[in-house]
């Protein structure tokens, strides 16, 4: 039995210790917002926050996540930064197919939570682990800046 502090709730899970957090979320807990893209920490589609840090959930076994705080796309809007990121994504119509966007939003939110006004280099560094096959990178960059400006304006508490 493992325990997760998932989006503010305590969840107990009975799976084998090597089961990646991604599959606990998707298959055991039926939370499908977090996506599978590569299974090898190469694409970022599965990004969640573990104790506030963005991680690739496909490559974190449940035994390593147990007892920690996990935030997923389903709850990211509950934080001021996550809400601002989603708002910017909506305003700029970032997604195309949308499949990579949960991971993009999780990475972007983590970036803005640690750096209020990131430079282009900061954005490159934080976001280049997230692949988008629809090629929305320029819109993602613009939306991150838009969200940063919005947050700097103090609209979000």
């Amino acid at each position, binding site marked *: 039995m493992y325990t997760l502090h998932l989006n503010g709730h305590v969840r107990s899970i009975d799976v084998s210790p090597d089961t990646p957090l991604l599959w606990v979320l*998707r298959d055991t807990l039926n939370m499908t917002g977090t996506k599978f893209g590569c299974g090898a920490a190469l694409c970022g589609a599965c990004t969640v926050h573990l104790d506030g840090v963005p991680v690739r959930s496909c490559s974190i076994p449940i035994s390593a996540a147990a007892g920690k705080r996990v935030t997923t796309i389903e709850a990211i809007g509950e934080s001021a930064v996550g809400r601002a990121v989603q708002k910017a994504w909506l305003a700029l119509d970032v997604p195309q197919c949308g499949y990579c966007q949960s991971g993009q939003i999780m990475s972007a939110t983590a970036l803005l939570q640690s750096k209020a006004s990131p430079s282009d280099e900061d954005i490159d560094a934080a976001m280049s682990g997230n692949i988008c*096959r629809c090629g929305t990178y320029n819109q993602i960059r613009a939306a991150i800046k838009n969200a940063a400006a919005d947050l700097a304006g103090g609209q979000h508490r």
Partner: protein
Amino acid sequence: MNVVAPQSRRQFLKVSALAGGGLLIAIAVPAAGRFAEAAEATDTAAPFAPNAFLRITPDGRVTVVVGYSEMGQGVLTAVPMLVAEELDADWSMVHYEQAPSDPVYKNPIFGFQGTGGSTTVRASWQPMREAGATARAMLVAAAAQRWGAAPADCRTEAGRVLHTDGRSLGYGELANEAARQPVPAQVKLKDPQQFRILGQPHERLDTPVKIDGSGRFGIDVRVPGAYTAVLARPPVPGAKPVHWNADRARAMRGVKTVVEVPGGIAAVADGYWNAKKARDALEVKWDLGGNTAWSDQKIHEQFAANVEQPGVVARKVGDAPAVLGEKHDGRRLEAVYEVPYLAHACMEPMNATASVHADGIDIWGSVQAPGAIQQALSAAFHFKPEQIRVTTTLLGGGFGRRFGMDFIFDAAFVSKAIGAPVHVMYPREDDMRAQFYRPAALLKFSAVLDRQGQPVALRMNTACASIAKSASMPLRGGLDSFAVEGLTACPYRMPNLQIEWNESEPPYGVWFWRSVGHSQNIFFIEGIIDEMANAAGRDPYEYRRELLTQAPRYRNVLELAAEKAGWSTPPAPGRHRGIAVGESFGSYVAEVVEASVADDGSVKVHRVVCAVDCGRVVNPRIVERQMESAIVYGLSAALYGRISIEQGRVRESNFNDYPVLRMRETPTVEVHILPSTENPGGVGEPGLPPLAPALVNAIHAATGKRLRSLPIDPKSLKKA
């Protein structure tokens, strides 16, 4: 002004009252185009199936039911815009709904329900506007009846019928009465000058579900009682499983069973992780069969030998072989171009959920062709097509790959074998190796220029496998038009031109890949034209422009791209420009790439300027984004894309060895739309083909080196 009589055009309207009140409009459209013949022969569906494109409920909500698949290209917004325009809907009240599988939703260009070939707007342009106009006429009739007024005294605007005397009624208030009005025999479509919704950069209707994790893709389908299966698949085409350790897999946690199906050996478990672990534990021994000697080298040698043979002639102007055989005092050019197999690498790996039961088959998933799935499964599993129900979800990328049915058949066979619903999942490695590739291809060209540098003759002979055959489509006169599209359209003034195709058959499966044959052929021809310009000592833009005097739509986008890129002024120091132009799917696109090449040969693309003429624009924001999307996709392929074959096996497995563009490598992209009153062209694919040639042309400008194969090899560009 357009006046159409739906019935006279073999288009059948069906109108009915909704159970919950309101108006519902359905339309059946005839098949046309190159898929039609094959489709009509097998189309047993009733033309009057009661189904809907449009629903107006008493609360004023307008729901447009979209029969096309959303894979990022914006159909869930574009199709509702077409309906809403002629309906004069209040755009804020318009919603989409994904249609079920039903022949009423067939794509009139294909003859079956399916999305691809950048067809959605072209296929929907007339029928979806007619559906909106028909509903509008009936709403007007209902209002006129209620008021005892003449319909001519009524007009519509933003979801209301307005009388000249100032009275007005909302569509919702009229929905029930409208459903009882006779269907008009003719509807008048708007003059495009009157468009209020079309041509506007409306926000996508599907964005909200794509930013909070609530959007459902095929991989997110959860059917009660369903298992998850992962298959061990043949490592070499034609390999057969001889032995596997089913007992070991069955003993593992969460595993239900192991079954053999045509696609391989399936490990069936309670979820992906346990299924994949069980699959990996199967230790399948394969009889590898006769294909283990295949390699990139062997494929190259076969293609190179093929193009020395005369091929099927796809286009002939004058007599290029004869002219090329004569003596000339101008320049003579001859070279070989080559491109590798490419995987689509959709962000969502292939997967599907199936339930095979006594009454038929249910399929849920990210699919591009529900109509084709109905036909194929009904034949294979002996059901009527209507007993196959396909629920289309959002697609995590398509690019042609999800026209394939390998994953559908896997799911159906496993479900049948275990007697329960099952979700078949492809690990990324299975997806990468599934062999639905853009064909590898080689092209040899020979050309002569006159003393002024003008082309006199051009002969191009290409070798590749046939996509049409892979897709069970007929060849016409022995020709697969997919193999030569982009070549046969050659718009340049060419007194003698001959284009030939040699079918080549390495055993690796080929398939539709974003822009299909144009993806390699426009790379070939735009490289060749650049070589001609170089040989003539001319500016590559001016040279093209002069050869395009008879092709105004090409020339216009070429000029616009050059102007916006500042072609006449030098780029920033260290940067170099290349240009290319092409038509595909009815749209014309020119691109200027600005790139630099470092001493170690590494290539950086800084900026791409794109000009597009896609006819009338439904949503300019979607057009711009689709151009940019195709540019990024094309740049991934040009810089990195290669599926290679070693000892019969596919070498690549995941994004480590099949890299794709990431944010830090992404150039700025500027898209300029040429205003046009032509009928709409496609937009999902046409942005792709000019990218690779514009890039190699820029690299030539930078280094003097002419790259004739993809992906770009930085080693060959290294400063000595």
